[in-house]
């Protein structure tokens, strides 16, 4: 049973990884506190839904549209938030809270409040020993892994990726070195929001959506990023998997109504007693600030 729970949790965590990587990137590069991140997951879910409704494209095929839409929403966020970058984090939080309100209710206005879902393409499962793996979740997981892999390749080996990491390390020094910081900000926003939207599209294959679904994902994304260590991308990846497992295991052993409490408590404990994140110092370097 434990094995089954861990496998289910890992699959879920794979999708969480996408949204927390995006959040972590934006926070790292632009020092921008995005409290509307979950709402972009919601937007991604609706884009996948619309693509299915209009062109009967399942999310496995509609990702180019979702990415394109994601870039649009990223630029919207950037446009709204640009003047608060490098300024008070308080205003960033408030602006994104306002944006979250606008996004949720615009979607509500156009799509009404009922749950939207798209039929399962497979709806079956694969049995490995005593463990059942949902085909949908497995495919979503594999796609998430591929995207994550691509993302890390980009971040690690391209000039722009390197520059993004450099800005994330030391914004002021990056400016002195002549890195085009005001160009890298929108790039980070685009990457981050596109990842969130893609996560939404993948979630759409397994869950229905509604305009208010984003606030839950927003907290999950932040919990993951904090557990992983701020602006530390590999950490966000590991903690996303951990949160996935934590959700299913605590849901089973402690009761399904306490599962959220478990990772919120974990979250507060980590914030208070290990603010550098869970994985710092375990053979992995942590960004000095």
């Amino acid at each position: 049973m434990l094995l089954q729970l861990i496998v289910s949790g890992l699959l879920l965590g794979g999708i969480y990884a996408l949204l927390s990587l995006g959040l972590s990137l934006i926070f790292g590069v632009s020092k921008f506190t995005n409290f509307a991140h979950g709402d972009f997951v919601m937007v991604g879910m609706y884009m996948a839904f619309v693509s299915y409704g209009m062109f009967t494209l399942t999310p496995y095929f509609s990702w180019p549209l979702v990415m394109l839409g994601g870039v649009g929403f990223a630029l919207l966020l950037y446009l709204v938030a640009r003047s608060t970058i490098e300024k008070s984090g308080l205003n960033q939080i408030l602006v994104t809270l306002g944006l979250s309100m606008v996004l949720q209710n615009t979607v509500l206005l156009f799509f009404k409040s009922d749950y939207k879902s798209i039929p399962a393409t497979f709806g079956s499962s694969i049995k490995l020993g005593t463990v059942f793996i949902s085909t949908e979740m497995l495919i979503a997981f594999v796609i998430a892994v591929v995207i994550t892999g691509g993302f890390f390749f980009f971040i690690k080996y391209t000039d722009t990726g390197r520059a993004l990491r450099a800005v994330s390390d030391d914004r002021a020094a990056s400016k002195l070195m002549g890195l085009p910081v005001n160009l890298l900000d929108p790039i980070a926003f685009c990457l981050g929001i596109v990842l969130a939207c893609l996560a939404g599209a993948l979630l759409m294959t397994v869950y229905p959506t509604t305009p208010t679904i984003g606030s839950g994902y927003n907290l999950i994304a932040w919990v993951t990023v904090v557990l992983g260590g701020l602006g530390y991308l590999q950490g966000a990846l590991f903690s996303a998997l951990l949160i996935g497992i934590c959700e299913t295991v605590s849901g089973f052993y402690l009761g399904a109504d306490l599962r959220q409490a478990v990772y919120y408590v974990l979250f507060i404990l980590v914030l208070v007693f290990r603010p550098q994140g869970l994985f710092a110092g375990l053979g992995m370097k942590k960004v000095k600030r």
Partner: protein
Amino acid sequence: MKKLSWFLILMLASVTVLSGCSSSTPANTAKPAEVIKIGVIQPRSGPLAVSGEDSYWGTKIAIDMVNEAGGIKGKKIEAVVADVPNAGAAQNEVNRLIQNEKVKVITGIYGSAMAEVAAGICNRNEVLYWEHISVTDRLTKQGYKSVFRMHINGSLFGEQAAQIAESYAKKIGLDPTKATVAVVSENGDFGKSIAAGVDAYTKKAGTKIVLNELYDSKTTDTSPIVLKLKASNADIVIATSYINDGIDITKKSKVLDYSPKIFLGIGSGYGLAAYGKSLEKDAEGMIDLDPTSTPVLKNLDPNMAKAVEEFQKRFKAARGYDSPTVGYLAWQATWVLLNNVIATAGGTDNLAAMIKAAKELDIKVGSLPTGAGVKFDESGQNTRAVISAMQWQKGKLVTIYPDYLANAQGIMIPLPAWNKR
């Protein structure tokens, strides 16, 4: 600095004028003699908006139909509509409807927190409160004089659900005292009050509950719940869910290859169109317990049948899908309120007359589209509200229980394993 204080004073004055305007204009334009005003409140934004909106359309269509048939004693009904996403908004809007719009009847509301607040204010202000959906037992246990609920309450709901479970258990040859039951419920007031009802009934009947699990309906992944069900190995599962979690529980049951002998879903989670749409053939054979949303028109009184048909047509035109249970509940409650209570009392001006008319109602079971009748007890709770068992057959919901409401035979009882469906 003086300028600043003037600015503030101006601002405040304008706010005061604004509130004055909004409170006086509608009252001036309305002509109280020619219309009967009814307050219609539902949560139409916020987390409860899904069913709140369906419930609004049920009410609105009933009012439109009565108006088109000439109104009540020649007077048209005017619906004063308000959006009440939370308890604070309920407080505010109900006061507005009573104080400024001078309504004497308020109907709604679907959400239980808002229902409690609204009912309290209505009772204090001697306004009739006509609840059509909220199930919390407590609503009618406060000693309110002018509060009525057309829908069943949670404990009765649970009791009837357990009865249905018992009868199906017998049908497949299970001894009720030896059968095991697992109850999973969302931890809101809806799930909890039903779980309590199931619990009370099964204790009487001697059935063993092996798992009584609550979960948060906002949960994104229900596999731990399904695994718990699987581990409990119960014969009968009674699951109360909203739509999101209801769909996920079914999906995860298939993925984890879990099928109990009998699975009874309760509430919107298993009965909404979205359920059938998103599960397609996997919905086949799943049972939902709720007042029926597939009424058998030929069993109804011909006039009622015609009205229901009209309602079905209009609802589909307005919302784009067949009315779910919530729509029928709102429609029939409003229908009875207008035609049997307000019409009998001759308008809304006399509260005592309306209460008397309501208390004297005696509509036998099976007369309303959901199979309910109307007979209020002392507390204002309708004792003739019933639930039925509906089943997904070939992508459509049909009613299979009780017999006088059934329009199809139950299939797949007991549930076969997933690979044999």
